[in-house]
């Protein structure tokens, strides 16, 4: 009977084997030298448009800036510009481009290319969320708002190899900004010809260490060494595959079975395994410039009263929160700007003081929480470790407020897009938040809460705070600048309290240091791909790592 059935189903089976055969005949690609698990599928690889760290890691490999970040210190070092002169008042930067800086297609990279790229980022039609990074340039903000023509922006290209920038303030972090993806040099002619789909053009001229070998959605971005890069001699790998991975368990499984060498997205660690993983020798954690905090909506009762806000801040035991929930190197945050930030010396911040918290709440008219209105704490839902953590933190905070203040706060987990939309419209009472540094300077954090900032999202406006931030950025004396920022931060976290910092992020990645070299830990979590390489001998001998904990990944 069985054999007869098989005789009768041959068409189906034949079809199936035909498909299998077709799959088998698909061309096999060369294996990459390094395979990196990088996070979600890139939204874009256009350096002017990308906003996520995973995307920026790829665009930095494709498109170089006038400066780039040193892999050890994340400080700006010469890239397309081999040197620069800064005027004594700190306002005029004259960059000298390298004579050997060429596109991957061979044409020289000139100051006109830089000019075109920067104006493109500034143009609101490009839709760059980071156009604001360029607002330190004279006339840039007015140009962005269509008030002045491009010629009035403080950018000049007097010679193909000389690029001059005039700033509105002598900010000490301008060279850091020059290394930022939004200021990378991109191929103008190709963009003008192909529009939004310019990254699909072939050949695609790139200014960075790698060319875009392939970009297959949800499969991989393949980066191939650019032999014409000015520093090509120091590019350590021929081919790097960057994988977008949707599920933390899959990321870990690929790593454990040797299909990937590096995992460096925090959301791609199975939350329930974090404790175990954090103890392994291939798990690396380091200080990283990011802060988790919550925002008050100061336009609504009861948080329009600074005493109530301070009471909540004093009732939040950050050390306990970190001890209980966070175990991969995070530190409690009593102030907003992380300690590791350059050019800064933060104030002491708010301690936990339940007694004082209750006093303040009573003064505001809610003794022991009596009569306190119904309020809610909103936090976004997300897949992976971060969504999980946001929920745990919310529960912990709710309990602290109930125990210390006698106040019941409702928790609302809200879908991501709805959450951010509500946050920007000030449709919340308390809202979970985080911020990661764009460059290594306190301004990247403190600038957030100026009255005009689109990222303020608290409704808090304070003329004194705005003045302090403005003056700090006009200050050329380092000590005086630090003092102004300190005073501003004190106002922010100790007195006016539109936000309460909870903890400082810790960066993390896992890779086997006996196999992979060239990754250095730095406060911006910045790991230029061109310096990452495989250590040959041991890679051959060791094979795939033994999986001890990974098997319980589900």
């Amino acid at each position, binding site marked *: 009977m069985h054999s007869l*059935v098989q005789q009768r189903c041959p068409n189906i089976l034949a079809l199936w084997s035909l498909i299998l055969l077709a799959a088998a005949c698909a061309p096999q690609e060369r294996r990459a030298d390094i395979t990196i698990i990088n996070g979600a599928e890139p939204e874009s690889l256009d350096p002017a448009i990308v906003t996520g760290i995973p995307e920026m890691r790829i665009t930095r490999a494709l498109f170089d800036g006038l400066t780039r970040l040193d892999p050890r210190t994340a400080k700006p070092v010469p890239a397309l510009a081999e040197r620069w002169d800064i005027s004594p008042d700190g306002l005029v930067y004259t960059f000298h481009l390298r004579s050997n800086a060429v596109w991957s297609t061979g044409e020289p990279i000139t100051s006109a290319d830089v000019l075109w790229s920067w104006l493109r980022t500034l143009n609101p039609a490009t839709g760059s969320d980071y156009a604001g990074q360029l607002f330190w340039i004279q006339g840039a903000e007015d140009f962005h708002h269509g008030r002045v023509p491009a010629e009035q922006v403080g950018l000049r290209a007097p010679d193909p190899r000389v690029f001059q920038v005039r700033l509105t303030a002598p900010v000490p972090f301008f060279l850091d900004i020059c290394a930022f993806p939004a200021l990378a040099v991109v191929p103008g002619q190709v963009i003008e010809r192909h529009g939004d789909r310019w990254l699909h053009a072939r050949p695609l001229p790139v200014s960075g260490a790698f060319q875009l070998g392939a970009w297959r959605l949800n499969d991989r971005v393949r980066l191939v060494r650019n032999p014409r890069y000015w520093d090509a001699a120091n590019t350590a790998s021929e081919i790097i595959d960057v994988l977008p991975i949707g599920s933390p368990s899959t990321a870990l499984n690929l790593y454990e079975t040797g299909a990937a060498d590096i995992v460096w997205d925090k959301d791609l660690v199975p939350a329930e395994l974090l404790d175990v993983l954090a103890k392994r020798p291939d798990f690396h954690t380091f200080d990283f410039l990011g802060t988790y905090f919550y925002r008050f909506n100061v336009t609504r009762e009861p948080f329009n009263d600074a005493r109530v806000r301070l009471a909540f801040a004093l009732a939040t035991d950050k050390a306990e929160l970190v001890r209980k929930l966070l175990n991969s190197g995070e530190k409690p945050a009593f102030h907003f700007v992380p300690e590791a930030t350059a050019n800064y010396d933060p104030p002491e911040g708010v301690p936990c003081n339940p007694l004082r918290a209750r006093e303040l709440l009573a003064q505001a008219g809610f003794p022991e929480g009596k009569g306190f209105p119904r309020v809610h704490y909103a936090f976004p839902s997300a897949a992976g470790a971060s969504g999980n953590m946001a929920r745990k933190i919310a529960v912990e905070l709710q309990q602290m407020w109930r125990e210390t203040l006698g106040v019941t706060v409702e928790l609302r987990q809200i879908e991501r897009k709805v959450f951010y939309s509500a946050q920007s419209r000030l449709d919340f009472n308390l809202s979970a938040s985080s911020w990661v540094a764009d460059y290594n300077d306190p301004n990247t954090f403190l600038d957030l809460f100026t009255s005009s900032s689109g990222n303020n999202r608290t409704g808090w406006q304070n003329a004194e705070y705005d003045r302090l931030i403005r003056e700090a950025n006009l200050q050329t004396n380092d000590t005086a600048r630090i003092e102004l920022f300190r005073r501003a931060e004190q106002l922010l976290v100790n007195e006016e309290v539109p936000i309460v910092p909870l903890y400082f992020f810790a960066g993390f990645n896992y890779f086997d240091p006996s196999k992979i070299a060239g990754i250095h830990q730095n406060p911006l979590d910045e790991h230029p791909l061109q310096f990452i390489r495989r250590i040959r001998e041991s890679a051959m001998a060791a094979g795939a790592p033994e999986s001890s904990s990974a098997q319980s990944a589900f």
Partner: protein
Amino acid sequence: MYFLRRIGFAIPLLLLISFLAFVLVRMAPGGPFDRERAAASPEVERQLKQKYRLDEPLWKQYGYFLGNLLRGDLGPSLRYRNHTVNDIVAEALPVSMLLGMLAFGFALGVGLPLGFFSAVHRGRWQDWAGSFAALLAVCIPGLVLAPLLVVTVAIKWRLLPVGLWGSPWHAVLPTIALGLFFAGKVARLMREGMLGVMQSEFITTARAKGLGEHQVMLRHAFRLAVLPVVSYCGPLLADLLTGSFVVENIFQIPGIGTFFVNSMVNRDHTMTVGLVLLYAVLLVLLNLLVDFIHAALDPRIRYA
């Protein structure tokens, strides 16, 4: 004639589906450009909305959408800004279709013989074993089966890759994870169908004619018994071809299923509407195909 009329009905149906999808995704709170970090200025958001025509009245937007649709253009993706929805469908759909066809082949290849085998051994231990296997397959969803396969076959025994896509080896586990449930369903349908048909009078007639048992079962009984399976194949194939979020996500397969689900989370309106429409078209076409096959298999069915 009948089929022309069916196609004639399908067009307003697809229009209605596209309209509902179009309106519903835009009614959901939160938009494609709401994110943790605000745009550089309100001007950037305004220009983006203008560029993607999100600032115009809904009926006008729908009009543009239909206009583009006539030219076969589903519009730009609002999240993957270097890609159009067509780009993404062209890249991801073939992957889902290949995996779907493999799982479909697996479901039929395992399900049909299993159901047939159980039915002809009705009441004996072979029937019990076969039915139990089919029931087990139906009871384990891909969400559970896929991780189990990964942990045992890929991690413990290191026989097959844990995920990714590219070689035939990468397709084996996802095919099983996706197809086993349907194999169970097909087996059950096949068994029921056979049991029903085996009691029909024409089977008795065939036996009375002196035909061999094999011939009776395969030539006469099978043809009719397989009809419920054929009806089921239309929606099944549409389901399999458009990708499975769970299986694609667990094995990191670059198919269309993950894009479908994520497009809703990301409020990527154009992508959601495009993929809903694609799914609807496939469903209508495959149901039509099923009716053709019915007519071919069952001599009692004639379409005027």
